[in-house]
């Protein structure tokens, strides 16, 4: 019999619909793979019964001749940033340890309505703050990949590192991610999988633990471009409960997939050719250009002059929003309370937050508090918002000359856990290519391109105009068809 864990969303869904195997068999196979992979530390909690119950319902619906949803029979991993009713939701923090939501996030509910089940809640950087999955209260996630000839545990990227590790290790066919400044695309690139951040507002933020509200956006992480298109279709849609939700129809991206790029112009931003970028990354970029040319596209040079300022602007805006959003963790309404004997209300706040937040979270809250404080607000925060407007304008002007932008997803391949954890700034630089599209709210995707000399995957990034997820997915498909990336990590974890 086929090893069901080798299949992605589409073959699983179609196989269940055709009766080649049952949804229950699929759920059992992935539950077993998850149970065997604890060495990756990809999951904070596992929910095998959720996966089995959803599968049984799909099997019963099929037997009754009912219509099946676009994710029917597909068990997925849920990043532990999405509130799930009755299942602990922590954002990988101590302050939310034991928090069991009484409601379901819009995105997760839409996935269950589409027929998916849940294998468990996936580990991440604490409150999605990190690029290596080393800031979780529940321990580091190990990438399934290792550099050739070494056994050093490698970073799966972050913040959606549990998601990327699980999908790359084939213990989940797909997973949800969230992207504030690269948290879907960078981990996807590090682990040889696909991931798309849609236009800001496509996926509801209701029930997603907030980090930086003007940037946070959910998206799928999966093994193929087509799987991403199917899953994004199930996640997206207008939600009156999110004030920034887009009131727009969701196109059938999967049906619209077309790798023929005749008539399309692809821009290559010259400012992304930065000092210190890996030779292998530059090589993958060259190959990417050729693949898109082969698919019929025209390649042009473009300029995004404010690229250099996007990352520092992000590291003012995101911490500022985070310091405000995370003010809600006060030991009163939910989560941890640390109340020493005889302490007053103010002491309780300070003690609770000292005990409940990790170092990186504290660092960002302090930066955010500083840049928003009286006397500094205009110099830091207002200036960053103006630079953000200029970064967005750069893209607008570039899209007068091209339909899509091709760039590397990251400046390097994955690195060993611990290598950058002592230097916050070096860690931030991981997202230098990912952050500009986040600041401008644009749809952007990472697709695996090749492996470097150490056998580690490298990803290419496509950025599109607002609402043009279809264009991004189509160019992603053109790359996928030509890159022929089929490498898998050795199964050292089970």
């Amino acid at each position, binding site marked *: 019999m086929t090893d069901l864990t080798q299949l992605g969303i589409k073959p699983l869904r179609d196989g269940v619909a055709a009766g080649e195997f049952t949804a229950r068999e699929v759920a059992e196979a992935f539950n077993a793979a998850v149970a065997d992979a604890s060495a990756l530390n990809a999951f904070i909690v596992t929910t095998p019964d959720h996966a089995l119950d959803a599968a049984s319902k799909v099997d019963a619906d099929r037997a009754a001749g009912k219509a099946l949803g676009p994710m029917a029979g597909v068990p997925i991993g849920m990043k532990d940033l999405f509130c799930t009713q009755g299942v602990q939701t922590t954002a990988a923090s101590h302050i939310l340890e034991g928090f069991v*939501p009484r409601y379901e996030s819009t995105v997760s509910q839409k996935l269950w309505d589409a027929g998916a089940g849940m294998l468990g809640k996936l580990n991440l950087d604490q409150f999605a703050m990190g690029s290596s999955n080393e800031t979780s209260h529940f321990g580091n996630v190990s990438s399934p990949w290792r550099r050739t000839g070494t056994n050093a545990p490698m970073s799966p990227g972050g913040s959606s590192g549990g998601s990327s590790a699980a999908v790359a290790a084939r213990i989940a066919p797909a997973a949800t991610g969230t992207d504030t400044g690269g948290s879907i695309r960078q981990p996807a690139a590090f682990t040889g999988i696909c991931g798309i951040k849609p236009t800001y507002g496509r996926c509801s933020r209701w029930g997603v633990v907030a980090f930086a509200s003007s940037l946070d956006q959910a998206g799928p992480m999966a093994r193929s471009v087509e799987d991403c298109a199917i899953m994004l279709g199930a996640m997206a849609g207008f939600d009156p409960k999110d004030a920034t939700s887009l009131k727009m129809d969701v196109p059938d991206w999967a049906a619209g997939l077309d790798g023929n790029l005749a008539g399309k112009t692809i821009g290559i931003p010259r400012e992304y050719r930065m000092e210190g970028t890996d030779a292998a990354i530059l090589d993958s970029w060259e190959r990417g250009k050729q693949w898109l040319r082969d698919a019929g596209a025209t390649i042009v040079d473009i300029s995004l002059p404010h690229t250099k300022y996007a990352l520092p602007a992000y590291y003012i805006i995101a911490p500022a929003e985070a310091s405000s959003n995370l003010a809600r963790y006060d030991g*009163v309404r939910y989560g941890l309370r640390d109340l020493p004997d005889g302490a007053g209300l103010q002491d309780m706040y300070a003690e609770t937050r000292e005990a409940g937040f990790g170092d990186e979270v504290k660092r960002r809250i302090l930066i955010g508090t500083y840049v928003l404080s009286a006397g500094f607000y205009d110099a830091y925060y207002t200036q960053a918002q103006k630079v953000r407007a200029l970064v967005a304008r750069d893209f607008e002007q570039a899209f007068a000359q091209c339909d899509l932008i091709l760039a590397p997803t990251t400046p390097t391949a994955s690195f060993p856990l611990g290598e950058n954890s002592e230097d916050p700034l070096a860690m931030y630089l991981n997202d230098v290519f990912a952050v500009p599209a986040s600041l401008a709210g644009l749809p952007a995707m990472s697709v695996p391109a090749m492996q470097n000399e150490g056998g580690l995957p490298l990803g290419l990034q496509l950025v599109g105009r607002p609402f043009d997820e279809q264009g991004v997915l189509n160019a992603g498909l053109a790359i996928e068809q030509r890159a022929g990336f089929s490498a898998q990590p050795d199964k050292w974890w089970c």
Partner: protein
Amino acid sequence: MSVDKATVTKIASLARIRMSDGELERMAPELSQILDWVEQLGEVDTAGVEPMTAVIPNSLRLRADVVDADPLTGGGRREDILANAPAAEHGFFGVPKVIE
């Protein structure tokens, strides 16, 4: 160095995070390094540029003026709201005494 230990002490107190002396000592140079790095934004000429607050032009919607228009976010859910409170008492959030 843009922030010293005294400044970090003040920010931490504004952010309601207690910090030990050791943590403050460690955090000050880290925050300084990050803030020195973001200073480069000062180079950008932003004269006449409006600060961007929303990436996609969007106006705020009004919901229908109906009680419990959305059952998930409407009223009457006291039990759900208190379910995760560290100290729920008599149907309210319990806090340490604030008035002597």
